[in-house]
């Protein structure tokens, strides 16, 4: 659960930019994994820029344990880290450790900043564009697409498909505790897309019967192909697969976790700090088993456009070896 420590209890080494990001994460002003990742990386950029190696130390040995770790600790205390943040930090630390102990500070800093920029461009911005484009290709005229809650990739896909001139309808099922679907409905309406909105999971069966496909945004994908997404996504996916409707999930590869495996919704989860009392609490995420998903669209597919979730791991392994060096 997000402990959300106040600023006065933050460790004194925490950089002001990281402090601001942490506060925004703690108050859920930025919620989804990619925004958090981007904000974190940009804050780390500021930290690296303002970092000066103390005398007698070398950046590659001093930076991570003494500076970076306190920032990471503070961010974790504000809100538990998402998988993509964990992946990115692992890659960053691996990069720092690869440097020679004698390399000059400026060289290392420049390299790290470049890596962060490249990372943001490739795995966040570019991935978003590619996924939206690929998913938009799969939308045909006359489709009625069902989605759950609000996810930026899903939104971008719809807007992209609209730009491409497709005419389709969207059915939004919203999470009653976190009404992000309303914002999505507004932005789609402004683009001229017809929207049907349901405030909660009631009437799910009816909504699924109406829909021709289902497009879901997820938070992360586990190593065994199960999806980690906003609480309620699993219900939508199961109902849809039951009926035989195609269910497509959208996810950037940075959100894939190679080490974690989950078969239930309770192992990896987070308690909502606002709906939390002695008698009951609300969980933020749930796990959707891979068998209920027809395919996952990432920025990596080739040819057919969808890959079953289980094969992502293989793709990732091939790709990550290339990033480290």
């Amino acid at each position: 659960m997000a402990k959300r420590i106040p600023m006065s209890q933050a460790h004194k080494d925490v950089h002001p930019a990281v402090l601001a990001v942490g506060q925004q994460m703690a108050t859920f002003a930025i919620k989804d994994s990619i925004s958090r990742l981007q904000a974190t990386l940009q804050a780390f950029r500021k930290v690296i820029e303002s970092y000066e190696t103390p005398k007698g130390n070398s950046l590659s040995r001093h930076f991570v344990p003494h500076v970076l770790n306190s920032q990471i600790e503070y961010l974790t205390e504000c809100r538990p880290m998402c998988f993509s943040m964990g992946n990115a930090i692992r890659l960053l630390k691996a990069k720092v450790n690869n440097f020679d102990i004698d390399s000059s500070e400026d060289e290392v800093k420049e390299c790290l900043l470049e890596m962060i920029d490249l990372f943001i461009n490739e795995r966040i911005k570019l991935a978003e564009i590619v996924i939206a484009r690929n998913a938009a290709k799969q939308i045909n005229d006359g489709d009625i697409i069902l989605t759950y809650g609000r996810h930026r990739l899903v939104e971008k896909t719809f807007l992209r498909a609209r730009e491409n001139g497709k005419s389709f309808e969207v059915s939004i099922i919203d999470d009653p505790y976190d009404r992000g679907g309303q914002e999505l409905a507004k932005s789609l309406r402004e683009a001229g897309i017809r929207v049907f909105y349901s405030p909660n999971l009631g009437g799910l069966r009816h909504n699924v019967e109406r829909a021709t496909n289902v497009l879901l945004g997820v938070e992360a994908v586990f190593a065994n192909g199960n999806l980690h997404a906003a609480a309620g996504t699993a219900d939508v996916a199961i109902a849809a697969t039951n009926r035989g409707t195609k269910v497509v999930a959208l996810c950037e590869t940075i959100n894939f976790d190679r080490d974690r495996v989950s078969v239930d919704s309770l192992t990896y989860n987070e308690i909502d700090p606002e709906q939390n009392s002695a008698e009951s609490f609300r969980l933020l995420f749930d796990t959707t088993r891979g068998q209920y998903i027809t395919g996952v669209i990432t920025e990596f597919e080739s040819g057919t456009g969808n890959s079953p979730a289980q094969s992502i791991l293989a793709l990732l392994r091939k790709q990550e070896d290339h990033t480290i060096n």
Partner: protein
Amino acid sequence: MPHAVTIATPGLQALILCGPGNSFPTFTTNPDENPKALLPIANRPMVWYPLEFCYRAGITDITLVCPPSAAEAIGTALKTNPFLTSLPYPRPDLISPKDLDQNTGTAEILRLPELQSLVVSDFLVLPCDLVCELGADKLLQAWMVQSASLPDILFDGSSSSVRRSGGLGVWYQTKTATPIKGEETDFTATVSLPASSVLPPKGSLFTHLSKVVYTMPTDSLKDLVDENSGLITRQDLLRHHPRVRMLNTHRDAHLYIFPRWIMDLIRDNESLETIGEDVVGWWAKAGWQQGIPAKLKLDKILGHTDDGKDTPNKSASSSPSKSDHATKDTSPENQISSSDIPPMLAYVHPSAPPAQAAAPAPIIRRVDTAQLLLQVSLQLAKLPSLEELGGPDVQGASPYAHTRKVAYPEGVKPRTTITKTDSLVADNVTVQEKTSIKECVIGANCQINEGAKLSQCLLMDGVVVGKNCKLTKCILGKRSEIGEGCVLTDCEVQENMLVERKTEAKEEKFMSSSGLEATEEEFAAEGGSDGDNSDADE
């Protein structure tokens, strides 16, 4: 005991404006030797409170701004006053720009070149007379999350037009249980922030945040209303914000968290004189009034690129002739739209505590008249001391609690009555027998002689109270002396004044007659009444 600040710094710098103010007639007639910033509130110099507020927030880059004439007095106090020297490191800087005099407006101060080059990041502006018990970290959190824009803070030079940060101000209710007559208020109109689907965290200030759309001091408002026999509201305001809340009895605490671009705004607009009225007022209006953003040159300041994506409302033709701003000549494509202006938010401090809180609401007051000084000092004197609570880290210990209520108990002779729960007695005070001290604040080095009865008084440093005096609700300045047998109620005695024995006075101000020659003549002409000016030591 000074130590380094041990919490994270939020990357903001603080400016504390130590001007003389003009509402303290009795005690600031000598603004160079006795600057208002050093007047004691509950035995600590006034400027200690905003400094402590900054340190509690983790802000270490603090600069005091004062006129050059007062620089020496404040500089010496920073080095010698026991409270100021026990503040944590790093010490605040003191700058006294040469063009600053006693009457410079607050925005004009920020326009001076010394300050323009000093402010390099987002910054806080505090007046020297602010007592704010509310945690600064909560205010900073509210600013960081609701008002500041993350892209602005994490600006990496890649995107050209990034949404800039807004500001935050604090307003508090003046109509408390014991209102002060004649306290200044500000007329403020606010609208609530757009509701978000995320619930605000418990204990945060977000539920009390709103956006300012109109603000001016009540005096200016009265002038305006008199002139126009009514309050004129622009149609633009109601078109943008159909539900506006107007606050009549609140006061601006003058505690602002401003983004860096405000310095550019002040620099480019010479007509802005004061921060509270002009800068905040015009900024609030820029959010909804056609033409104001261009008038204030906000498009250049906010770095908006004119790629035509701003589409200003072309409502000038349809509204009646209220919109008289000469902006029709600028080409609409380059004009910044009102909806792109970062918002100026207001935290309206609730005067009644929330139902579940055990302690009363934190105090936020500006102390700029003598009556306020007395009331706030007495209010702070009622805080239990750290000794009684058992240590500074106990839950519920206010940051303003003193270590001990009677700092020097050896100076207090037996057979005296001092009500400890609501009095505060500073160091080195000698209290003779048979005195009664109820609900008073007594400064350092005072002497209270036998038989004196003090009730609800504020004594500054070095005061000598003669035998058998009876003082109620009085404010006695530094090193003043009250002769034997005086009976004073509701009086103010300037520093270094001597009040002759057996004077009886009610609601009088004992000031020195220097510079008041006419009064002396009048006084002589009238044949003199009792209780007014006696010898004046300069």
